[in-house]
């Protein structure tokens, strides 16, 4: 089978994995070889769906012994199959890299013959890249569920990042849709990687140099909307993954019903807007010091998709507003809709140089359209309506009717689709 056909089949089969980030590693170009990793990651292209292409994201093979019902590659599905050799894949990676198409390789695979056998093939490929081609670019490797931990350890010495996809947000759903996988086969590699990382950071203090084990840490992916879990269940799961496993990122992938299956909840179009709200909320957890419980409650376990989660939170906590931008502490500034991380930093610095007036806020990057309802500047309120939920909400709701899925007319300024450059 020719390479062109393999690329067509195996890129197509890999496209539902949303992670493509190349961040978190600052691997250097050693011994005058080829490549290095940029800590903040670099995108090199954008596909027609607007998603960033940073890595050559591809499956080693889509021939699978398992039959997970949410997945196109399940063995009972009638699709074209293909299989690379380690040589072919290493050669394509290097030649794409030399032309500045990509930052590196994101290699995943269906379960071919057995989890261990598949893991060995992936390791062979990346070993070739690192040792024969002297390649120091970014490598993200998938840990195949059920593979031996010794193989995972070995893989981690070549990779910058590893991921184990949880896919389904509850054990019940996993049993239902992916009966051949167990919760254990997912959690075990994840906690193994976590423990290795902890150990390495301990031993780094003792020795000057240790082999780097997945320097960019690990990530996972959850499928949104294929099973009935609420936003709250999903967000609490993410919160725990960040807390206990120190994950770098949890990715959310709106389920795209590519075929009919009785297990699936009769969905017709992917819940893109819901996915977008979860990303925003995830962002609030990681960088804005929010807790999942502050954002969603048992009584209201799902986001109002028409509102940004931060605005949603502010609406419910109007008693805390307005805040005075010249004096409010950093954490409170962060909670103001329309003030982001960078803007909050700038405000804190700028107000040391001079008192801030309303005009200067714009130069600092404050989105006044949203922020003005929640702040005062030198004691003056500019929100041209009273601080009441309904009135503000009225002003902040988008005027146009937003059809679920049409993200392009909605607030894409939140850089959701360009996340890789921000870690």
């Amino acid at each position, binding site marked *: 089978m020719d*390479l*062109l056909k393999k*690329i*067509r*089949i195996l*890129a*197509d089969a*890999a*496209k*539902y994995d949303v992670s493509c980030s190349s961040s978190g590693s600052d691997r250097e*170009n050693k011994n*005058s*070889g*080829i*490549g*290095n990793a940029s800590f903040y990651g*670099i*995108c*090199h*292209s*954008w*596909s*027609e*769906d*607007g*998603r*960033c*292409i940073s890595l*050559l*994201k*591809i499956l080693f093979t889509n021939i699978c012994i398992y039959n997970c019902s949410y997945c196109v590659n399940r063995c009972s599905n009638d699709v074209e199959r293909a299989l690379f050799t380690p040589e072919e894949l290493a050669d*394509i990676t290097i*030649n*794409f890299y*030399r*032309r*500045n*198409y990509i930052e590196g390789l994101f290699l995943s695979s269906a379960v071919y013959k057995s989890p261990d056998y598949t893991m060995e093939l992936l390791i062979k490929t990346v070993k070739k890249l690192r040792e024969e081609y*002297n390649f120091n670019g970014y490598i993200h490797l998938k840990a195949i569920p059920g593979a031996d931990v010794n193989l995972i350890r070995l893989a981690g010495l070549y990779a910058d990042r590893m991921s184990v996809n949880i896919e389904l947000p509850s054990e019940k759903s996993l049993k239902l849709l992916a009966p051949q996988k167990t919760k254990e086969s997912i959690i075990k590699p994840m906690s193994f990687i976590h423990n290795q990382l902890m150990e390495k950071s301990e031993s780094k203090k003792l020795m000057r140099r240790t082999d780097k084990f997945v320097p960019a840490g690990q990530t996972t992916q959850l499928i949104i909307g294929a099973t009935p879990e609420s936003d709250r269940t999903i967000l609490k799961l993410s919160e725990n993954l960040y807390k206990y496993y120190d994950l770098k990122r949890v990715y959310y992938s*709106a389920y*795209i019903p590519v075929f009919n299956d009785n297990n699936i909840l009769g969905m017709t*179009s*992917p819940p*893109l807007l819901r996915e977008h709200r979860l990303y925003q909320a995830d962002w609030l957890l990681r960088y804005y010091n929010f807790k999942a419980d502050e954002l969603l409650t048992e009584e209201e376990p799902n986001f109002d998709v028409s509102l940004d989660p931060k605005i949603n939170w502010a609406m419910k906590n109007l008693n805390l507003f307005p805040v005075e931008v010249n004096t409010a502490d950093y954490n409170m500034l962060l909670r103001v809709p329309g003030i982001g991380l960078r803007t909050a930093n*700038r405000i804190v*610095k*700028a107000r*040391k*140089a*001079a008192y*801030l007036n309303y*005009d*200067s806020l714009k*130069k*600092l990057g404050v989105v006044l359209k949203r922020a003005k309802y929640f702040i005062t500047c030198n004691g003056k309120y500019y929100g041209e309506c009273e601080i009441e939920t309904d009135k503000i909400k009225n002003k902040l709701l988008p005027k146009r009717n937003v059809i679920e899925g049409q*993200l*392009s007319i909605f607030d*894409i300024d939140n850089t959701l*689709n*360009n996340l890789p450059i921000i870690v």
Partner: protein
Amino acid sequence: MVNYIFDGTFDGLMTVIYEAYYSHQHPNDIFSEINHQINFLGHDVFVSTDIDKSNKVQHAIETKISNKALRNIYYAYLSELESSYMLIYRYIRLGFKIGKKIDYFIQNDIVHEVTKLSQKVRHEAYKMIELIRFKEVKKGLFIAKIHPDYNVLPIIMPHFAERFQDQYFIIHDEKRNLSAVYDKKAWIITDIPLQDISNMKDTEDYEILWKMYHKSISIEERKNLRLQRQHMPKKYWDMLTEKQ
């Protein structure tokens, strides 16, 4: 009040700053000789570039103002906008007055303008780092062509030289007729014309594979061309293999 004319180089501009300070002759305007017609009314002063004076000014900016300020000045200069020279002069004056605080003083108009300009240049340099496409025109020799709005070659070369240490490559700026050449040891930027650069082609095999990859990785149900264009502006499409 005089008009200062310099040779268009960064060292030249820094020499102007030096002269303006030591002669106490504040500029009415600053021009690069490349764009400027000599004015016979006699207010023009031509400043010849002096590396020592330039270094002194740069050193003073770094120590008395900040590293960040020096970088902002350099990037604003690379915008090649005729208006940037006076802006830079005013920024430096302000900097010598208020020092390091200038980094936070974004509400000031001069600081705001310089920062904005510097950000635009940096942004385009970053876009080039993302979007440059090399072609292997001869075994082991890679060439990329660009036509950026700003003169970003000096910003992006360190990145590529570090990354592609084992590969001969040239990045050619078609708009300015400049070529950055790397020979596995060091890089230079030169305006010496390169032979036949226009009709050199890649072997194509990998270009075809890349186009196929690019098409297959996109999800039809999520199609969003507007978003794609936002990140990959149309003005750069002719550089992109996947858009050919």
